């Protein structure tokens, strides 16, 4: 049943692509309906599957001669991420409701690309045949380019191209790794297959895994925004229109982390083993990538602290939070990986909320993202809804208990403590800096100390802005409510994630040690 998320999205995209231009106001309604159906399917699948193991969704022969099948399966991790995609999709469309007001908004194309992207993302999370996973992964790249290049803002062509090329380069690295693995398995066993389980069960030689793992992991990690391959992320997020930023930071970056876990770590687990020698304290790929993750956490947070463009603050904060996800994955402990997956969900929701505030609610009305200029606008009085929304979203993003981010971060840090104590401490520092930049942004934008004054010293009157639309309210309630719900009762997700993590290959959960 879950496969219908994919089919509905692509069908919707196709419908919108051929919709006549004059029906541009209807386009967003169609898109919303499709996204809601997708969310309903995802939710139904999530609830009906409960906490059981992998749920088979589809299994059709595709190119049997090559061992490639159309196999979809949803274990706990996939179900959670599919749910996230559904939520992000609906929210994204709600926050793009103003596209479609005018004819040259090109609403049909916008929502068509949007739904195509969503369809590709659903596909990645559900695929168990690695060829199919790769196909969906690549399908997602082109809509991203066009969403940013056509409807974006700051340096959009540059941002779009950078994003597309980085993603494509990452996927090229993954393809090389996958092809070689496929050839090796087929050559040795005579049974050519691209099925994840088959490849995972095969014992590749350690020397093979030692180069295949970092290649495939890096390929996916590029999309996850791992330092130092993260530079596409802030540029891309800032350039993108709001809904695309929400999706990019919220869901697409999670594709990369998901690929790291599902492909790189599952098929080549021994690539994480110690090398046998140690260089400056680094003794395995696990430590290398862990170090990159931690640097990403702190670097992202520190750079966010000095930004003057509101959207860049959020863009860099995404890099920082994804660093936490990668760190959690690399701890190779049940609790760390649980935390990483929960953080994927939580950050997906919160990034959506933050970008929505910055892009849709503030920028659409004030037409500026410069912190210094926003400071003068007394936005806490002019836009109280946005102010309080950002307070809540910011607190949640900081890791305040009661929201989803806290439990996730705690779990990752506990896992990190067991695996790399030093990194855990540095990550903690990153979280503290996270508090700082969120605070700074909140203060500067909404709670200004120095309202603007005219030349003769009288305060400028508070501008009147458009009231908050129903679509924006609905989107906010959806996202903020979810974060709060999961924050208060994280077992809703953890009970589903934990068994799935437990079912990961044994080598992964023994800390990479035999």
């Amino acid at each position, binding site marked *: 049943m879950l496969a219908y998320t994919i089919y509905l999205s692509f069908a919707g995209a196709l419908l919108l692509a051929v919709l006549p231009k004059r029906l541009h106001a209807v386009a967003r309604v169609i898109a919303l309906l499709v996204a809601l159906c997708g969310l309903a399917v995802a939710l139904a699948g999530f609830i009906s599957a409960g906490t059981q193991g992998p749920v088979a969704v589809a299994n059709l022969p595709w190119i049997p001669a*090559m061992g490639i099948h159309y196999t979809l399966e949803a274990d706990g991790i996939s179900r959670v991420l599919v749910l996230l995609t559904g939520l992000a999709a609906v929210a994204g469309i709600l926050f793009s409701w103003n596209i479609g007001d005018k004819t040259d908004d090109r609403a049909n194309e916008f929502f068509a690309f949007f739904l195509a992207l969503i369809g590709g993302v659903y596909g990645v999370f559900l695929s168990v045949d690695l060829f199919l996973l790769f196909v969906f992964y690549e*399908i997602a790249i082109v809509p991203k380019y066009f969403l940013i290049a056509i409807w974006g803002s700051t340096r959009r062509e540059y941002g779009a191209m950078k994003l597309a090329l980085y993603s494509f380069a990452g*996927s090229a690295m993954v393809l090389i790794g996958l092809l*070689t693995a496929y050839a090796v398995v087929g050559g040795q066993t005579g049974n*050519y297959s691209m099925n994840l389980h088959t490849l995972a069960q095969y014992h590749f030689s350690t020397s093979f895994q030692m180069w295949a793992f970092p290649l495939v992991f890096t390929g996916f990690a590029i999309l996850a925004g791992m330092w130092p391959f993260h530079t596409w992320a802030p540029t891309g997020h800032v350039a993108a229109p709001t809904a695309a930023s929400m999706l990019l930071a919220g869901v697409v970056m999670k594709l990369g982390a998901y690929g790291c876990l599902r492909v790189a770590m599952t098929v080549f687990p021994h690539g994480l083993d110690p090398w046998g020698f140690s260089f400056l304290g680094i003794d395995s790929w696990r430590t290398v990538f862990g170090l990159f993750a931690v640097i990403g956490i702190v670097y992202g947070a520190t750079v966010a602290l000095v930004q003057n463009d509101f959207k860049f603050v959020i863009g860099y904060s995404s890099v920082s939070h994804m660093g936490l996800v990668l760190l959690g994955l690399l701890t190779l402990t049940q609790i760390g990986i649980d935390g990483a997956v929960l953080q994927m969900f939580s950050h997906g929701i919160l990034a959506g909320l933050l970008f929505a505030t910055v892009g849709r609610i503030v920028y659409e009305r004030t037409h500026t993202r410069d912190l210094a200029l926003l400071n003068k606008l007394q936005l806490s009085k002019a836009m109280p809804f946005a102010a309080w929304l950002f307070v809540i979203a910011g607190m949640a993003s900081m890791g305040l208990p009661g929201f989803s981010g806290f439990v996730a971060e705690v779990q990752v840090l506990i896992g990190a403590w067991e695996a790399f104590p030093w990194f855990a401490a540095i990550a903690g520092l990153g979280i503290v800096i996270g508090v700082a930049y969120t605070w700074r942004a909140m203060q500067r934008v909404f709670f200004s100390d120095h309202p603007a004054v005219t030349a003769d010293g009288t305060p400028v009157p508070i501008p009147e802005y458009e009231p908050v639309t129903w679509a924006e309210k609905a989107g906010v309630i959806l996202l903020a409510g979810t974060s709060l719900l999961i924050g208060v009762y994280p077992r809703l997700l953890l009970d589903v994630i934990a068994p799935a993590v437990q079912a990961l290959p044994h080598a992964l959960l023994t800390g990479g040690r035999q």
Partner: protein
Amino acid sequence: MIAFASNPVNYSNLFAITLPETILEVVSLLVLIVDLAWLRRSSQAVRMAWACALGVLGCAASAAWLAAHPSLSALDGNILVATPLVAAAQIGILVLSALVLVLSFKAEFSRNPGEFSAIVLLATTGMLLVAAARDLQVIFVALELLSLSLYVLTAFAKRSAQSAEAALKYYLFGGMSAALMLFGFSYLYGLTGTTSLEGIAASLAAQPLSPLLIVAFVLVSAGLGFKVAAVPFHLWAPDTYQGAPAPVTALIASGSKVASFAVLVALTSAIIPPDAHLHAASWAVLLLWMAAGSIILGNLAALVQTSVRRLLAYSAIAHAGYMLLGIAANTPQSGAAVLYYALTYALTTVGAFGVIGIVERSAGTDRMDAFAGLSRRNPLLAATMFLFLLSLAGIPPLVGFWAKFNLFVAVLRAGTLGMSGLILVAVAIAASAVSLYYYLQVMKRMYVFAPVRHEPVPISFIELATLALIALAVFALGIFPAALSNWIPLG
């Protein structure tokens, strides 16, 4: 040994095997006759329509015959063969030529439509023969038939100086490489005593590698490398692709490539029999160097192009590189993969040049900016070009991705190339990633930029329908690549 003097030629066998070619030749004469006899007073458009229609019918008839009579036979001494794989290549070539003819029936570059169609059919005949040839002499003759026809076709736009210049360059370059190839063939004959590929294979297996043999390889590679536009024999390609009329470029880029790759596969499997080693090394090494050069140079040069035709020319060089890699692997699977790749690439290219022809007709230039805002002027046309370019870039779920994947898998599975194979596959995949940049440039113009003129580009229903059909095929084959596997085995 020269053997045919004592064996009488079996003419019925010859006729049976070459029936497809014969059909084409008859139809080409028919076209000339019809045009001369009945259409003297008709308008240009009507004449072109008739010529193309007849040409298409001829191709269709020939393809139908091939599909209906799958045979496994060979002309005496294995000069020409008819295996399912060869038949697949030939049917593909015929379909491609038919498509080219359909897409050219609105073309206005020529006042001699009858001759145009006839020469296209002659070129197609040459392609069919090349694909089926297994004897050095026949290969040469067929290649010459093909090449001469293409030279003439390139010059067909008599009002364009660019066309004439392109044809001249093409002819000079082509003539020289043909000469070199013949020279190489003569050495091969001298070293092995036979011109049949089978005989050459047997003879080379028994010989040690000699400097003369290496010279022969290099010379032969010159000729064939020219035909497929591989580095370093690619210099004609950008100018020719740019100067020739759009349908002709489509033909050069599609059918002739398929035929040439088919013969390269055959030649390679002759020169590198399964258990040979010394000879194997040198020919394969040659192919690998050409492949590497083509992949790298083709992709890098395409990055800076501002003319869509030149961009596709350099991309053609790159694609030739990928296919050469597949040929160097030299297993039945890799041969089939190369053929699959060549056919689907050719199909996509025909579509792409079809679009270019239409856009050029209204804009008068082939610069990328002519495509600006095309998605708002002609959404369907832009969508087809979108699919073609994405397929060329290797983005799923289109057939181009599948063809690349299949090819790389075949190379890795073959294992005959060892580490260099793996490295080249990695380079190829990386280069594909780079190629997205320049394909995106055109797509960006179509979808992101605002149009300079807002009225739709004039296009006839048949052209649009054909392009849509090709795009649909590109998409459908991408989702169900196994649809072709009746003819071209996968895996």
